[in-house]
Each structure stands twice: as C-alpha cells, then as structure tokens.
C-alpha cells in the first residue's frame, strides 16, 4: 500500500458515504505501522498543472531522497473525444480537429489528414501543391523542434534561448497567417491543395525567414550544444536503447536519437519528399542530449528542404506557376464568384458545405512524419458522408508510456528535463 493522495475526479457524482469511505481509506493509508517499507520513500504529486510540466500531466512519483523510484502517470485531462466527434463530421470538418492534436505543428497534422483523404479518394496532387505543402510542413517542423529544444533549455536553467527564438516562431506564424489566415490552430489547406495561392507577401516573408533564420539557429545552437552546464545536465539523462525504443513504439526524433534511422518522409515518401535531398540525423544513446542534437540537426535539414522546395517553386513558369490545388470538384470548394453566377458551382458549394458527398468505401492508413514522429490516420469509410471510424496514431501517447522506465533511478530534476525533451504535447497525448 502506498500513500497516494489521489484526486477525486467527480466528487459531485459520489454520495457522501462513498466520499467518507474514501477518506477513511486514505486515513488508513497514512497510519501505516512504523518501519514499513512504504515509509522509506516520499510520494510527490507532480502536476496536473505544474509550471514545470508545460502541459496538463500528472505524475505521482515515489522518491528516495531526490531519486525517482517509480512513477505513475495519469493522462486524459484534456481528452476531447476527437475520434467520436469525427464520426459525425464530413471530411473537411475533421481538419480543425487535427489542428488540436499537436498544436505546435498543426499544419503537419492538417496535411496528414488531407493526404489521408486524398489517398482514400484517389486524388493526385500537382507537383507545385506538393512543394508548397512541403514548405509549410517543414516550417511547422522547425517551429515544433524550436519550441521543444528551447523548453529543454528553460528546464535546465537557460531562459535566454527560449525568448530569443520566439521571434522566429512568430515569423513562421506570420507566414501561416499570410497563407491561411490563422496562426496556431491553422486549418491550413483543403483536400486537393490550398484554399488560395500563396501571396507575394508570403514568399517575401519566407525569403526573410530563410535569410535570417540560419544565423539565429547557429546562435541558439552555440548557446547550448557545447555548453558545459547544459551537457552535464542532459547527457545520460532519460536514455533508452534502440531495442527498447522500438519495442515501445517510439518514432520520430526520439527514436532517431536512440540510433534508428526511421523517418516516414524517407521510408514512405508522401507529398513528393522523394524529390528532395536531405539527411536523417541519428543519435546514439537516446538520452536527453542526443534528442536535443537530433532535433537541432533536423532543423538544419528542414531549412535545406525549404530552400530546395522554394527553388523548385520558382522554376514553375506560366500557367503552371498558378496551380495551387488539384481538380476535385466533389471536395474542393469552387471559386466564390462562380458560386454566385453559375448553377453547377452553387450546387457543389452547397453539397460540400453540407457534407452531402458520399465517399468511397475503404480502409486507409496514412502516416506522415509529424513533429514527434509517425502521425498516422486510420480511416474506415462505409461509403457514407462521414468516416465510419477514424483512429489517430498519436506518437506522444505511445512513447509517453516509456516515461517511468526513462526516469527510473534518475534525479527528479532530470525527470523534468526528460519530460520536455520527449516533447510531450498534451493535445496529442489525450486527443
């Protein structure tokens, strides 16, 4: 028996005697005989809303001095039943749901969802659309990794990096805003492409980002990568072997830090990733420091991908340079001026908005490389207007179960660093 001050979650529903029973039980726990083994550890309740956890995570830790003996995670504080919601929504209405999974890189989730739908519907997107998507997705990856790495800095005691790079996340958000009108929960793109062409301002902002960001990233890297205090805090903490990481279903930077070069962009290229030259950085020990370095290196790779994609886009000439969506009348909204003047366009507009288009029967699984790893969508359609079943493979949810194993025997302060270096995002964890 352990002393666990468990939260009574739905006090309202419980009758008074039931509450009393729980209270007596707790009381009973506290009056354990002296010298019992439980008394030798301290129970510490970290979270659910603790400034160090950067999200709603609860951990009931058993500590021996400052070392973690065991921990029990509680998740689900921001569970919003997305899979249930999706069963009543037509495809285009599911996109805003995906925003709220990993909200640090919403565009990747959106694109992943569009790609899933396109796979089900058999839509081929033009190359220019693919490249535009690659630009947006890689920007999202940079902003995701940037937040993760700078938060690792904050948790090891260096606030400067975090504040410094925020300006450049802001610039990325401005690019999103220019493309789709929103910043955090982007709802970017449509099935078949983008809702409108990229404006010149968007490209100017992108150029500004490409010009200024490498210098900033270099400086950010300089603050941490060979910083002795940072290295001593992170090397060896939260390490996992490649074998265990695979067994735990790790993907993304966390798996690559353990030394496995699995990247969905390379293994199953989507959105024309096969047209780009880039490396997959891998670590060796799978500890907090390797995770930091892998993410850092991935940002450089993402930058190079964006540059390549931008060059490819500039190479399009004439009518080709104006293409920003595929021809999918059943799912891609017609132009507004056509809706007001043409019967056909009006009908499609109505049918799409009301979600009256039946999709083909089938089961698809589509994965994209999200900020945290393989973000998968398992979509079952029974031929109706909404998905029959939609399951999100959320990388966060899968690798967070390894957390007790990662922090066991380490210091409490390292456990906090491990949590941020895993890049846990509550939205993705709880769906």
């Amino acid at each position: 028996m352990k002393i666990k001050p468990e939260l009574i979650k739905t006090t309202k529903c419980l009758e008074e005697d039931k509450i009393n029973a729980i209270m007596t039980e707790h009381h009973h726990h506290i009056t354990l005989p002296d010298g019992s083994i439980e008394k030798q550890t301290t129970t510490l309740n970290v979270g659910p809303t603790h400034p160090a956890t950067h999200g709603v995570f609860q951990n009931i830790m058993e500590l021996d001095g400052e070392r973690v003996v065991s921990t029990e995670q509680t998740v689900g504080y921001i569970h919003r039943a997305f899979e249930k919601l999706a069963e009543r929504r037509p495809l285009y209405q599911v996109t805003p749901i995906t925003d709220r999974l990993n909200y640090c890189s919403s565009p990747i989730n959106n694109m992943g969802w569009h790609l899933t739908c396109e796979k089900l519907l058999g839509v081929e997107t033009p190359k220019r659309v693919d490249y535009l998507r690659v630009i947006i997705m890689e920007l999202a990856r940079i902003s995701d990794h940037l937040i993760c790495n700078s938060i690792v800095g904050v948790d090891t005691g260096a606030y400067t990096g975090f504040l410094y790079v925020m300006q450049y996340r802001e610039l990325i958000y401005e690019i999103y805003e220019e493309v789709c009108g929103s910043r955090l929960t982007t709802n970017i793109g449509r099935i078949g492409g983008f809702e409108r062409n990229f404006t010149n301002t968007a490209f100017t902002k992108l150029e500004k980002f490409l010009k200024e960001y490498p210098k900033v990233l270099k400086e950010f890297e300089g603050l941490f990568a060979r910083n002795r205090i940072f290295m001593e805090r992170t090397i060896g903490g939260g390490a996992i072997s490649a074998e265990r990481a695979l067994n735990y279903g790790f993907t993304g930077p966390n798996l690559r830090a353990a030394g496995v070069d699995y990247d969905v962009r390379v293994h199953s290229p989507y959105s024309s990733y096969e047209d780009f030259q880039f490396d997959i950085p891998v670590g060796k020990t799978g500890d907090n420091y390797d995770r930091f370095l892998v993410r850092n290196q991935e940002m450089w790779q993402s930058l190079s991908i964006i540059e390549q994609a931008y060059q490819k886009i500039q190479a399009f000439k004439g009518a080709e340079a104006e293409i920003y969506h595929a021809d999918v009348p059943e799912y891609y909204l017609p132009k507004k001026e056509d809706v007001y003047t043409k019967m056909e366009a009006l009908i499609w507009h109505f049918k799409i908005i009301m979600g009256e288009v039946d999709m083909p029967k089938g089961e698809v699984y589509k994965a994209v490389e999200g900020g945290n790893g393989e973000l998968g969508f398992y979509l079952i359609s029974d031929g109706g207007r909404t998905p029959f079943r939609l399951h999100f493979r959320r990388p966060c949810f899968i690798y967070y179960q390894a957390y007790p194993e990662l922090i066991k025997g380490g210091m409490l302060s390292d456990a906090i660093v491990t949590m941020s270096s895993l890049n846990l995002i509550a939205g993705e964890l709880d769906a």
Partner: protein
Amino acid sequence: MAIDNQYLQIKLTEKFGDLVFNFEDSYGMLSFEAPKEQNLKVLQYLYDEPTLGFQFLTDLCAVNYPDDKGRELAVVYHLHNLQTNTRIRFKVFTSIENTDVFTASKLFSAADWMERETFDFYGVNFVGHHNLKRILNVDEMDYFPLRKEFPLEDQTRIDKDDEMFGRG
C-alpha cells in the same frame, strides 16, 4: 525492398491454413483476419519468422460494427517491418458479450497503453494485461463511449432536424 503481399499471404496460409482468412489488398497494405484465440500465435509468428520480421507495432485500435452479430468488435493491429518497410494489417473479431482477447503487451511494450485505450473506449477485455483500467476517461465511467450505441448528439433534440438533409 518491401515484402510482396503475395508472399506474405503464402507464408501465413502455409503456417496457419484455414485459420487466416479474408486476405485483402487495401490500398497496397495486406489486411487479413484470424480467430481471436489465435491472435498471439499470429503476432508471434509475424514477429519471429526471419523473412517476415514484423517487430514494430504501429497501431492498435478497435472498431465497432453493431450490425454484425457475434462479430461486433474488431481489434485491429497495424504492424511494420522497418527493415523492409512493409506494413500489414491484422484483425480479430469478437462478440460484444464476451470481449476477451489475449493481450499483446507482453510482446510489444507499446501495446500497454494502446490496449488500455481500446478497453476504455470499446470495452475489449485484454486477458493477461497487467493494468487494464481506464486511461483517458474518468475511472467512474460505466460505459464504453466509442461504441456505436452511443450517439454523439442528444437524440432528443428537436431544434435540429437532420431528416431535412436525408440523414435521419
């Protein structure tokens, strides 16, 4: 180089005979089915057989088919061979009255929480799981919310007439 679906099907039929069935090529991924008592044997074979090597559990979830009597719940495993980059989908069906399915968490640590999530939403009882309790919903909940018997919206609402759009 990805393993050919044809080859996978031959290997599985050689080993399990009639116990594996409903082979289907679903958008390039081989999908098949086995009786629920066989799930661990199939998973172990896919894991151990050197030419198959499906050692990565990508995803585990359940699906509810309320109209399919005796096969109301499906547990779906997505497995991945990272070396050859081959994916496979494996399903077992179970009735809603007796939802016992053997746990895969001994084989894949990743299955631990995925099975808890599946239990939480569909009530699939994973036999042998070390800690099968609710994970995302509150512990006091006494139903399995993702089953189709629970409609998403309040069905007694009268201000919204879905029949106007042919969806009753």
